[in-house]
């Protein structure tokens, strides 16, 4: 039975010419888990917001949206609020109150439930999500993963029939994200909750979802089981790059038929179809520039006098012209390390040298003039002006000299851009200081696979121009593809550091999907091209093709 039915839905933002959504029709059955994918700015968030009339954007709507047979427009605001739950894109912005318990109670308070009922539901929800240990805490003191869990719990207290989630794991490390998605799976399987989920993590969600929706420029391209979507659309490169590693590998190898979905099926496919006489690729030699661009020696840092050390004896050398990727769990201190490297925090012991010169010998901000630049984790901190044009002019950036094109965005307000576009504009401002050492903190968060590939090209160009780059990221695929060396950050120090092939083939969890999929078959395939070249070298089993 259909819970949500959408018929010929079109939408145009007030004051815009082109529609953000065009002629979208589909329906979601009760108990289904549906994943929505699509490039940045294709209208995913817009579509989701239209389902909830109280937060629908302003503009012109045509078509119909039915919830359980009644048009959502004729639902009372109250009913719509209670029956549809919505978890928003940014965990921090969704939190309303200052205490965890109050946040949990908020929805029930608003709907005017009696106190006893509120108490019961809050208690139940806190137990289910294991929130009890931090029930009395301030919401501000929670970690990113906890915040997102709280948001989910706070939405579920009102017992909605349909749950909408907009990129809920964009800021989480791979392990926390997998945990969160597993919680969603449990909710769907155990409680039969219907959910529609926007996600850029194909590996985790595709194997568990019932159906997959693909959008492109405001139109719905497909809605079907993941397998069938891949059969029909898998050959288009811009869609293929957002698919799980197993599917990408399958298509790149030029196979025909039904692609394997997820790590397990991928392994089975490889085992069955390809030989593994050649198990490993030769280790790529690691060569580096002569000069050390950044060196941290036994650096210790803490935020509060009486607090715990966030950086403990961190030692790191980055050579000129290399790209280094830092990976690690939420709260392990990556951002802190980057800020110390950029001279924004002073370590209480240890030394930091930039291009051989001690940091404190750079006087009067000369460190930031054509030397070091930091792209912060939160790019909102970068924007000062009311249009992108002024923003670039303020930084002295020449739009023509940028490695990418921003002309179509010049007149927009920085806050009206989509996530990926914001990232690019911020990067343009940072590049305008023409740094020799670029420190970038999670430059690809919230980007779709296509935009990521674009960014990889930009970093490669920078490297060719002799810029040293340190990137903090949660994205293992990006790191494996791009970096000269990768490092794992753990409890305020570097736990391991080596070339990507060695690094990712040794890790079990902090590694790429390809590496997990080929583990035990090949020894050191970490990127898709590694796997492809190994498969080609080995050839098909039994000489079938």
């Amino acid at each position, binding site marked *: 039975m259909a819970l949500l039915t959408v018929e010929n839905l079109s939408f145009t933002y007030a004051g815009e010419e082109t529609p953000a959504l065009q002629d979208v029709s589909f329906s979601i059955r009760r108990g289904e888990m549906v994943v929505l994918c699509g490039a940045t700015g294709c209208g995913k968030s817009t579509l989701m917001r239209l389902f909830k009339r109280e937060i629908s954007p*302003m503009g012109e709507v045509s078509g119909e949206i039915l919830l359980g047979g009644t048009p959502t427009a004729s639902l009372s605001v109250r009913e719509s609020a209670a029956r549809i739950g919505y978890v928003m894109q940014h965990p921090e912005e969704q939190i309303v109150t200052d205490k965890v318990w109050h946040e949990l109670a908020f929805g029930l308070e608003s709907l005017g439930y009696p106190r006893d009922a509120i108490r019961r539901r809050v208690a139940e929800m806190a137990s289910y999500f294991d929130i009890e240990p931090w029930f009395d805490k301030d919401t501000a003191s929670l970690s990113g993963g906890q915040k997102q869990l709280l948001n989910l719990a706070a939405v579920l207290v009102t017992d909605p029939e349909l749950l909408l989630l907009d990129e809920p794991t964009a800021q989480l490390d791979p392990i926390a994200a997998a945990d969160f998605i597993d919680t969603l799976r449990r909710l769907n399987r155990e409680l039969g909750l219907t959910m529609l989920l926007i996600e850029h993590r194909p590996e985790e969600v595709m194997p568990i979802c019932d159906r997959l929706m693909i959008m492109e420029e405001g139109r719905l391209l497909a809605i079907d089981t993941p397998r069938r979507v891949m059969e029909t659309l898998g050959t288009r490169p811009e869609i293929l790059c957002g698919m799980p590693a197993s599917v990408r590998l399958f298509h790149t190898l030029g196979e025909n038929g039904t692609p394997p979905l997820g790590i397990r099926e991928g392994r089975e496919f490889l085992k069955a179809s390809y030989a593994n006489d050649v198990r490993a690729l030769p280790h790529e030699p690691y060569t580096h520039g002569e000069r050390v661009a950044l060196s941290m020696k036994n650096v210790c840092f803490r935020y509060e006098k009486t607090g715990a050390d966030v950086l403990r004896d961190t030692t790191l050398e980055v050579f000129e012209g290399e790209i280094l990727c830092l990976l690690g769990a939420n709260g392990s201190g990556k951002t802190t390390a980057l800020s110390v490297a950029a001279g924004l925090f002073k370590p209480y012991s240890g030394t930091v040298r930039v291009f051989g010169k001690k940091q404190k010998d750079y006087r009067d901000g000369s460190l930031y003039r054509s030397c070091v630049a930091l792209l912060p984790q939160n790019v909102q901190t970068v924007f000062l002006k*009311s249009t992108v044009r002024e923003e670039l002019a303020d930084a002295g950036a020449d739009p023509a000299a940028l490695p990418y094109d921003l002309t179509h965005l010049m007149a927009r*307000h920085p806050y*009206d851009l989509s996530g990926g576009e914001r990232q690019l504009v911020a990067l343009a401002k940072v590049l305008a200081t023409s740094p020799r050492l670029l420190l970038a903190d999670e430059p690809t968060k919230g980007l779709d696979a296509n935009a990521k590939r674009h960014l990889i090209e930009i970093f490669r160009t920078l490297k060719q121009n002799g810029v040293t780059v340190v990137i903090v990221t949660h994205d293992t695929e990006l790191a494996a593809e791009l970096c000269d060396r990768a490092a794992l950050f753990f409890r305020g120090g570097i736990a391991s550091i080596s070339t990507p092939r060695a690094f990712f083939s040794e890790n079990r969890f902090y590694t790429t999907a390809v590496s997990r999929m080929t583990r035990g078959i090949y020894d050191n395939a970490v990127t898709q091209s590694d796997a492809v070249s190994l498969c080609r070298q080995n050839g098909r089993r039994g000489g079938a093709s």
Partner: protein
Amino acid sequence: MIVIQNARLRSFLRILTLLLIPSVAVLGYFLLRGTGYVVTSVTVASLSVVLFLCGFDRRKTGSRRLVLVSVMIALSVLGRFFPLLKPVTAVAVITGVYLGMEAGFLTGAFSALISNFYYGQGPWTPFQMFAWGILAFLAGALARPLQKSRTLLCLYGALSGILYSLIMDIWSAVFASGGFSLPIYLAKVVTALPHTVLYAVSNVIFLFLMAKPFGEKLTRIKRKYGV
């Protein structure tokens, strides 16, 4: 909270409270010499705040507006932590000018309440709430001319710095001597002169520099999200 649904009665009450504090100060001087004055003045100040807020609960305030006012309150509390420049009044005045009288009053009054969680609550809290609230409220009433001319706005800023100081001096005189006496009040006014000047000057500086960008931001938000 007391519910007064008649809008006219509400505005009448507000005008009444506007006159209340000065008239109590004057009347008290003649009638109430000495004891009882402290209680009376604290009560009057609290009542004025309550009267201003009454009816607030009943009216439909969009949640966006509500949140925006909370944001402005928080920003103005932050202003109190600024060293030297203390743009509390300035932020409240800007709120009054761009988001309306009531928003202004709420911002002024609640930033006093909240910042006193950090600086210490006491019987002076209602006075501060009233002083900041009323100054922002009046700015809201004068929104048209103040939006148009930066000079006028700065002038209003200077004036509100002085007025704030004068109102708070009533309080310190009353509390320091258990009653209102003119010589002590004047002495307080004189000793508080450096503060008064600082308030006025920092208001002017802040309004001169920030009123326009602040106004642009608020106008953009109002237009884009239909607040």
